[in-house]
């Protein structure tokens, strides 16, 4: 594999509103330094892709953003959300996760009915009125483009859905909480092409109301759906720019090699 200068990077300025930003983020798994000085700003109501080779630290970075790495890794630096550093001990992580939702690589619906999958966390967050629950249920399933397929079977087990449907259910479950930001870690990698394209459509629709950050291995997918793209390499953010730039006019050699398939 070619050696690239890891300290050289190109990070673009973000115009308009910011939803979330990191400042000098470092992540350590024990002795393993997995993320070095990540400084990224995520624009509001846009889709940002994180791309990079396997092991480059995309998932690690993403999971820090809603404190899912709390017990697994040591995370230094700041994560700013609404001017609050949410990477602080004093922060109520449960609240953070309600504002910054996450969808995982493998669909992980609860072993409950479709309806309960959505309402469970809502009830827990104090929404108990039946009307409100019904309304959220319907709107989130609609947003995730699942409503038509399941509306007659809401009390069916979520595990009986197909993989793609499960994944959309997980997205619906996340957005039912009305988060600000949605983090997705390779949400389509375990899915067939049909489901994948449905999920891409869904994300495109969601963009109006949510800031979306998505990790993907699939460069075509990144170029299809995202507005901004960050390229990770060995724990470093090498390039961060609009997607069009990253794919057609990369500033860094590593990025160019990666997006053109000549990497490694």
């Amino acid at each position: 594999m070619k050696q690239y200068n890891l300290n050289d990077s190109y990070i673009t300025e973000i115009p308009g509103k910011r939803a979330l930003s990191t400042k000098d983020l470092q992540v350590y798994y024990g002795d393993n330094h997995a993320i070095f000085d990540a400084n990224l700003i995520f624009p509001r109501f846009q889709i940002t892709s994180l791309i990079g080779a396997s092991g480059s630290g995309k998932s690690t970075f993403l999971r820090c953003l809603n404190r899912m790495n709390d017990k697994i890794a040591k995370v230094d630096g700041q994560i700013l959300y609404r001017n609050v550093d949410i990477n602080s001990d004093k922060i109520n992580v449960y609240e953070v996760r309600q504002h910054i939702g996450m969808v995982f690589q493998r669909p992980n619906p609860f072993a409950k009915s479709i309806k309960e999958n959505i309402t469970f966390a809502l009830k827990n967050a104090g929404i108990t009125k039946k009307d409100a629950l019904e309304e959220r249920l319907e709107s989130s399933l609609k947003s995730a483009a699942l409503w038509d397929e399941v509306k007659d079977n809401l009390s069916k087990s979520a595990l009986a859905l197909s993989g793609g449907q499960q994944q959309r259910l997980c997205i619906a479950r996340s957005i039912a909480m009305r988060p600000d930001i949605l983090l997705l870690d390779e949400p389509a990698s375990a899915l067939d092409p049909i489901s994948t394209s449905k999920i891409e459509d869904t994300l495109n629709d969601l963009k109006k109301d949510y800031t979306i950050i998505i990790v993907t291995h699939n460069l075509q997918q990144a170029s299809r759906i995202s507005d901004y793209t960050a390229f990770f390499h060995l724990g470093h953010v090498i390039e961060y720019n609009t997607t069009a730039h990253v794919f057609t006019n990369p500033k860094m050699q590593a990025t160019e090699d990666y997006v053109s398939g000549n990497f490694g």
Partner: protein
Amino acid sequence: MNAKKMDHLATGIIYFLVGVVILLLVAILSYILFNGVPDISWKFLTSAAQSFSAGGGIRDQLFNSLYLLLLTIIVSLPIGLGAGIYLAEYSTDNWFTDLIRTSVEVLSSLPSVVVGLFGYLVFVIKLNLGFSILSGAIALTFFNLPLLTRNIEESLRSVPNLQREAGMSLGLSHWKTTTKIVLPAALPGILTGLILSAGRIFGEAAALIYTAGQSAPTVDYTNWNIFSATSFLNPMRPAETLAVHIWKVNTESVTPDAKLISSASSAVLIIVILIFNLGARYLGNKLYKKITATK
């Protein structure tokens, strides 16, 4: 010998071993059932035991066994759940966790008599619980906990991490995630543990002789006042269980039909365990299906 022949030979040996074990199991079970079942009658199940004369039944003992099982589960399940959850969800690999595991496992190999005497001196005498179902339940908790804790821990661990992450990422607390998502998913495994320990509770005698006692004062099955001494629900009354009854009948009883009582009681015990086993599985499955909305 070539590998294929060896494979056939080994397969043969394993089938042989399994065959022997099955034969053994069948022999033991049928020995007990054939000796006992012919003497089981409705009267036997519903009349009180007799000290000296023939014709005694096992009504009270049977009820006591079931009641003791219930109380023991009530005492030990929460502790086992707490400990199992701790070990599976909260603990990290350190000396403290090791210590807890060792403590729990040491409990499992204590001889029953020792636990019985301990229970007698501490619960019956010192804590003044007297010979009572409650003392018995606490003593049995000693045997029950190791198996139960281990089982709960393993069942929880076998639930994929994805489920935890799903809960956590929605802003649920760790505790809610564990109790409302992971625990239901682990239900079938926990149930197996519960059934196994129920077997041991039904079968235990030595530890109960000194704690729950070995006499069964007549109780009133219409008295629903838990605090009344004669109420069948009073956990503070002494209670001889079926296993203890079998032991007593075999060792000191002068009833002429001791042998009959003993073999019929053994058969009843096995049948009850079987019913419990199947019933718990059935109910557990139903519950699991209800929680997980499958079918």
